[in-house]
């Protein structure tokens, strides 16, 4: 089980490479410019769903970006305490940026 932290916009090669490596039992956290993939109508969201991984978004970044009001219900907004909890559950992290 790997925690993937994704901080690059949908359309970047970092975004694509991350998706290629996410397995169904991994955790995925969208942060920075990756939060736009959490928009309910974003084509990138369908690709995220297809990984089967639990989807999270860093709440502060989503609110800053204006994504929160239009965010998909499939994505769980989390604070830093929950981010740390995710890191406790996953022995390794890969940062994609």
């Amino acid at each position, binding site marked *: 089980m790997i925690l993937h932290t994704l*901080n690059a*916009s949908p359309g970047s090669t970092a975004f694509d490479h991350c998706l290629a490596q996410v397995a169904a039992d991994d955790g995925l956290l969208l*942060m920075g*410019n990756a939060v736009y993939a959490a928009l309910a109508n974003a084509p990138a969201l369908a690709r995220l769903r297809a990984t089967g991984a639990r989807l999270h978004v860093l709440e*502060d970044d989503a609110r800053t970006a204006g994504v929160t009001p239009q965010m998909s219900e499939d994505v769980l907004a989390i604070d*830093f305490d929950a981010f740390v909890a995710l*890191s*406790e559950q996953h022995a390794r992290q890969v*940062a994609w940026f």
Partner: protein
Amino acid sequence: MNYALLVLAPPGSASRAALGFARAACARGHQLERVFFLDRGVENGMGTAVAPQGERDLPAQWAQLASEQGVELVLCISSAIRRGLLDATEAQRHEKVGPTVAPGFTIGGLGLLVETCTDCERLLTFGEGC
């Protein structure tokens, strides 16, 4: 658990996330002995940077975490000096104006990052893409 963080991102969203994570990890009772700043991450320790009014002063907030939680904030020496981040020793050694490193930060070699990697149970990288 024993945590270590590597920050590669300059002040911005990824660096704010690293700080938020560091605070939350300490609040959850984890050990965070060292945050290592490498590459553009060293810009978080720029003592001569001026935060825009009304915006977060990241070097000051990192320094606050360091003093409250005993977290060591290390700027990679080779990343730092090429960007003008010098402590008193390096300023003298390279005959430049200084020190320019913000209070609470120290300068050290990559060996300290490696040492941290051997000691910790959780290691997280914070970088910023576009």
